[in-house]
């Protein structure tokens, strides 16, 4: 995360490859399911043996003795509808929920988060020299309507995108944050309204942030969980 500050995001997951290196983020939506983005994975049939989801720690490279860290192998990848760029990752076993590991709520189907809603992104990605490398960083934003977003970004923002208001400073997601959450506070609960997707540049000032809108795919998420 460029800008932002170290923070607490107990549903943010670090995805690790076979070498144990962090390569993308994700969000815990059930004890044994994580949502991330398709771009982070080689295929919808990828053999993910040796890949792990790590959570419960604030550190990018926690010590092996870190008492709060939970590492669970990823057992399956399920790709979302073609236009979604989402993937669901099934964990080999459920994680233990506690003060450091929590599931994030899913929004109601097709719900549009009102503009100005308070949201945040989190991740262990590149900080572009803005400090606090190696710890989980969080940056705060406010939702912006898609109409305004299209005007400012000068591109047609689709219904399955969700935007955050531009800021006058360089703050935003960067390499290594993709797949992580855009979590918004509704009714005292944090809700996964967006998923961080790759975009040109990191935290460009005066530019809206564009994310995949999760509410459009909640029916698919529930179907995968059920089936």
């Amino acid at each position, binding site marked *: 995360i460029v800008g932002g500050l170290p923070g607490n995001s107990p549903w943010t997951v670090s995805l690790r490859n076979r070498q144990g290196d962090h390569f993308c983020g994700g969000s815990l939506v059930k004890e044994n399911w994580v949502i991330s983005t398709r771009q982070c994975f080689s295929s919808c049939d990828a053999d993910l043996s040796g890949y792990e989801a790590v959570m419960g720690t604030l550190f990018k490279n926690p010590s092996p003795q870190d008492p709060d860290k939970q590492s669970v192998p990823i057992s399956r990848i399920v790709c979302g509808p073609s236009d979604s760029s989402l993937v669901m990752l099934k964990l080999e076993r459920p994680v233990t929920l506690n003060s450091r590991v929590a599931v994030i709520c899913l929004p109601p189907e097709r719900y549009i988060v009102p503009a100005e809603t308070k949201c945040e992104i989190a991740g262990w990605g590149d900080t572009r020299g803005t400090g606090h490398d190696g710890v989980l960083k969080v940056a705060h934003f406010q939702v912006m309507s898609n109409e305004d977003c299209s005007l400012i970004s000068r591109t047609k923002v689709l219904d399955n995108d969700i935007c955050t208001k531009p800021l006058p400073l360089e703050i935003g997601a960067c390499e290594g944050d993709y797949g992580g959450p855009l979590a918004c506070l509704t009714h005292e*609960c944090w809700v996964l309204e967006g998923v961080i997707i*790759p975009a040109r540049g990191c935290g460009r000032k005066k530019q809206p942030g564009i994310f995949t809108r999760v509410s459009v795919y909640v029916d698919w998420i529930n179907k995968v969980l059920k089936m």
Partner: protein
Amino acid sequence: QRSPINDYERFKGVELVHPQEESRKDEIKAEVHVCAKQCSELVECKAFDYNWNSHSCRLLPWTEHSARVSLLRNVHYDLYQKKDYVRDCIVGNGETYRGTVSTTAKNKTCQQWRVKFPHDHKYTPTAKNGLEENYCRNPDKDSGGPWCYTTDKNVRHQLCGIKKCEDAVCLSCNGEDYRGSVDRTESGRECQRWDLQSPHMHPYRPEKYPDKFLDDNYCRNPDSSERPWCYTTDPDVEWEYCKITPCIEKQRVIAANKTPHCFKERGEDYRGRVNVTTSGIPCQPWDSQTPHKHRFLPEKYPCKGLDKNYCRNPDGSEAPWCFTTNPNMRVAYCFQIHRCPDDIGPSGPECYTDNGELYAGKVSKTRKGIPCRNWSDKLDELQSFLDLPFPGYLDNNYCRNPDKDSHGPWCYTMDPNTPFDYCAIKQCGGEKPLSLKNDANIEFDSCGKRSERAFSKAR
């Protein structure tokens, strides 16, 4: 510090079954290396199968190539066969070769070792010398390798032309796809088995890297090194490269198969000209060592397309990447390159309207090309899922949308790893605007809660 298991090829999840000889298989309760040692000491033992449940083995006088023997899938067993009996190449002069090749290099059929016609000879088969059937052998340590007397009365004997292991499977590119049977390093040290952690501890556990084929103690290249290598059985030498003959024919670079504008799978074939990372940092040229020193020199990786400073994937990472020109960021992915559209497009000119609830076409494959399962096979599941009587229009295995899925027609698939998926059908007239809800009844239970204490107050 070699392990006695080094003399064996492991075949996971199978046992050997001989219909008439099952009673001869006595179970020995012992660790796998003890079984290997026992089998190695008995000339008549050619293999053993190991039961990981009971931690016992059965010493076997046959291999998968023996008559009347069949392989049976059994998750509790691993079959260990002596390499000399199952390898189709020779080590040294092939004196220990016990394979089943029985024709010469010039295609003459070999004479049975036990008969003296058409060619009389001095050799008598014994349990030790391996002169079985009419298989090629090297009882006189001929430098040309295994040979045999031929059934042609005008040709007394001929070499069989069985290749040395280092020549049997040649090395193309950097040998990531090498699946040959060389088990010694270029200095002659014996390789450590990948499934053992001694004498050297290592991260390359075969179960963690199923796509790297880390078989037995054979040389492999799981980490995109310059060529195949292995950990050695010498405690003082951790690893060494192996000597394998390179392929003479052109390196397998087929431009037509490379993807120029998008990337498939891990993007190892991506040959486009994107040269900045996802966030726009220019890439460092591959032939430069500044600002980041690295091992991916274009001349050492001829098949990886390491041209200029283009995003590439020479090491099997998740996607194309590059070293960046930012001294503080060594590598970064180029996730902005688009993935190629799925290989399987719509099966025909058909399309669906709205959410495809009324689609009645005959497409019966998913977007990945997996055939659909008959709806009737999933009758119970669908009823409990839909909470509705089984809709009558769900005939055969055609793609349908009985649950009004907003993402279009779908089906249950024949792939056990993909319970359901969407079909290869497009929406008529392109994408339609989605209907989104501004207001919704929002109720959450225990999710999305966290301790909101300020981070600065933590340690």
